[in-house]
């Protein structure tokens, strides 16, 4: 017999790995990406390829030549960052803008802090917000897809058409800029299944929801963050409805529906806010984190100057994570405070 191996217990492992988790998230993004391809055609494919390649390339170059470390690409986290960044930009964004965003996301958002596990902010969102502030016009001009039926007929690739998103339309109604806003608002069902305007990956709430449920079922994420975000947004919207804070001529139910199904909410709630590195560890920490995101996003949507604020909300709550991690779980045998 060869020499025996001696190591401390435990001697068994679940088989889970960083790579497995990243690959599962990537898999869960596929339904939404499929809808994007139907909606935006070549644009979706090209943007995705550029973004992923730029993120992976940036990480490889930085680890190899700047940090002189072993490359860390095997964990697939750079691929995921690239995918998420692509999901967060319009499908007709100029390629060089996207490359700048990807390099910034990986370079500044992730590697500056020491790579995977060390970054305080979600790298994809760091990249996205950097682009949003640097190239506001390009980042907020979305091509529209012209509805489900025509998409099936293969007429969906409509880069020439650009239009406001449902959230922007609601905002213009809310602020009273546009008296005709109601007519421009797409059908709620269309908003839910998708194929409306918006960033590349956020068009179909349904597909994102499906992917999110997949993540919860495979235990990649827990329910705490997405559920608390969605519940907070729904409750906030309902209260706004009850107290007359919504545009005239719209019923509260519909308003709640639009707030939930449009914009970056689903993508953010299931895929961005749940990023392991930048979200709290304990169950209660996660719930507070989610409620905070829900509140901030609704405050921005209702009173802010941007129609949508999911990226900002998540980034702001990312900053509170070290604090939220001080909330400790209830230890076994600990008495409830009387």
């Amino acid at each position, binding site marked *: 017999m060869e020499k025996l*191996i001696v190591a401390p217990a435990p001697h*068994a492992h679940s088989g889970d790995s*960083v790579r497995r988790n990243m690959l599962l998230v990537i898999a869960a993004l596929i339904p939404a990406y499929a809808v994007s391809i139907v909606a935006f055609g070549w644009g979706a494919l090209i943007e995705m390829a550029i973004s992923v390649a730029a993120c992976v390339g940036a990480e490889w170059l930085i680890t190899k030549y700047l940090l002189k470390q072993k490359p860390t690409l095997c964990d697939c986290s750079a691929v995921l960052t690239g995918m998420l960044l692509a999901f967060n930009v319009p499908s007709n964004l100029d390629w060089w803008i996207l490359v700048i965003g990807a390099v910034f996301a990986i370079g500044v958002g992730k590697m500056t802090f020491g790579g995977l596990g060390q970054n305080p902010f979600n790298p994809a969102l760091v990249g996205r917000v950097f682009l949003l502030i640097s190239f506001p016009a390009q980042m907020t001009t979305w091509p529209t897809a012209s509805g489900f039926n025509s998409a099936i007929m293969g007429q969906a690739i409509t880069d020439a058409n650009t239009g406001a998103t449902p959230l922007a339309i609601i905002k213009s109604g809310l602020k009273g800029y546009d008296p005709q806003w109601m007519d421009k608002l797409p059908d709620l069902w269309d908003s839910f299944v998708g194929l409306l305007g918006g960033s590349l990956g956020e068009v179909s709430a349904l597909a994102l929801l499906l992917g999110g449920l997949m993540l919860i079922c495979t235990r990649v994420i827990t329910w705490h963050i997405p559920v608390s975000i969605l519940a907070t947004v729904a409750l906030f919207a309902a209260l706004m409805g009850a107290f007359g804070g919504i545009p005239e001529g719209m019923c509260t139910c519909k308003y709640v529906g639009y707030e939930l199904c449009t914009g970056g909410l689903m993508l953010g709630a299931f895929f961005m806010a749940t990023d392991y590195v930048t979200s709290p560890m304990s169950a209660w920490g996660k719930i507070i984190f989610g409620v905070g995101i829900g509140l901030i996003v609704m405050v921005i949507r209702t009173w802010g100057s941007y129609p949508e604020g999911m990226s900002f909300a998540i980034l702001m709550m990312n900053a509170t994570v070290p604090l939220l991690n001080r909330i400790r779980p209830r230890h*076994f045998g*600990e008495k409830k405070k009387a």
Partner: protein
Amino acid sequence: MKVGDLLAKAGGFVSANICSPVSGTVAKIGDWTDAWGAPGQAIFIDVKGDDWAKTIDRSEELKTECTLEPKEIIDRISAAGIVGLGGACFPTHVKLLPPPGKKAEVLIINGVECEPYLTCDHQLMLEHGEEIVVGIRILMRALNVDRAIIGIENNKKDAIQHMMELTKDMEGITVQPLKLKYPQGGEKQLIDACIHRQVPSGALPIEVGAVVDNVATVYAVYEAVQKNKPLVSRVMTVTGKNLAHPGNYLVRFGTPIDEVIALAGGVPECTGKIIGGGPMMGRAMDHTEGMPANKRLSGLLFLPEEESVRPEEDPCIRCGKCVDACPMGLEPYLLSKLFAYEKWDELEKHDVMDCIDCGCCVFTCPSHRRLLDNIRPAKAKVGGILRERAAAAKAAAEKK
């Protein structure tokens, strides 16, 4: 020296006798290193024949009647050198003597099997259920309690059925099927599962009125009290993927484990690791030559090479899975980090001493981080600080 004769007398309060598992003459008492490399002392006996002490009843006959007083029962258990056979080896008679002011209300019998792979308790319940039930009644008598719960995980349907059958006419004894969940064999976890009471940090089960004993321990109690047979052997699971004859073996203490391994078909090829105990808390052996079975060795597990090497650590991605997995509600990632920074105060505040070493955090970590490699020494260090503090406080009190 005959089988069953007292070989070594318990030294302290939390200590147990050792009775001779063989007959022969004591050759020497000397220094010795165990299979895990820990130095200690051992008694060496030259074995001659198999001569049992006359007082021991070696018949198979079931003796159900027990009219002894609680004190007599406890004395017999103490004399027989019985310890908890689940793995912790805590002397059983100590558990039966609650400290002043505390009263036992319920006896909980651990039939959940402490670790995956081990089946020794399961097998014992199936083969010696009758004796175990008598043992339970003896322990109830010793503790003066009228309630006993046998906790069995529901992957052992036959054992649940069997024990229910045996106890159906008995007042006070119930069998409680439990969800399959590691580490339910842990004392605190089992109490929580059976009577929904949580033992506070740092306290003993008696704090919530419970006394827990493993089925193997209960069987030993039966033999000691009814048959006058001291603890000289135990059931041990010998298993592994490629082992020729895996199974449960009744092994006398002192038996060279190489003999047990030979019975089970020898060490399989490509074995990378031999573990004494289970896969979660067992200890990897450095060598097996000349190593004897003892009261603690609940199993031998052979892992193939590919399962033996720990993968390299990846950076912590702060997923929080260790926090979700910890049965004690601790934050393993934090404890591990605090150890690296030598923050002993913080470690104490975060209840590092509550860690039960179950290994769930390391098992679940997607980054293969060796959290326990840090938490174990952290416990040792903080434990030392706590003991020093307690000693200082005691000295100060005496001064006054």
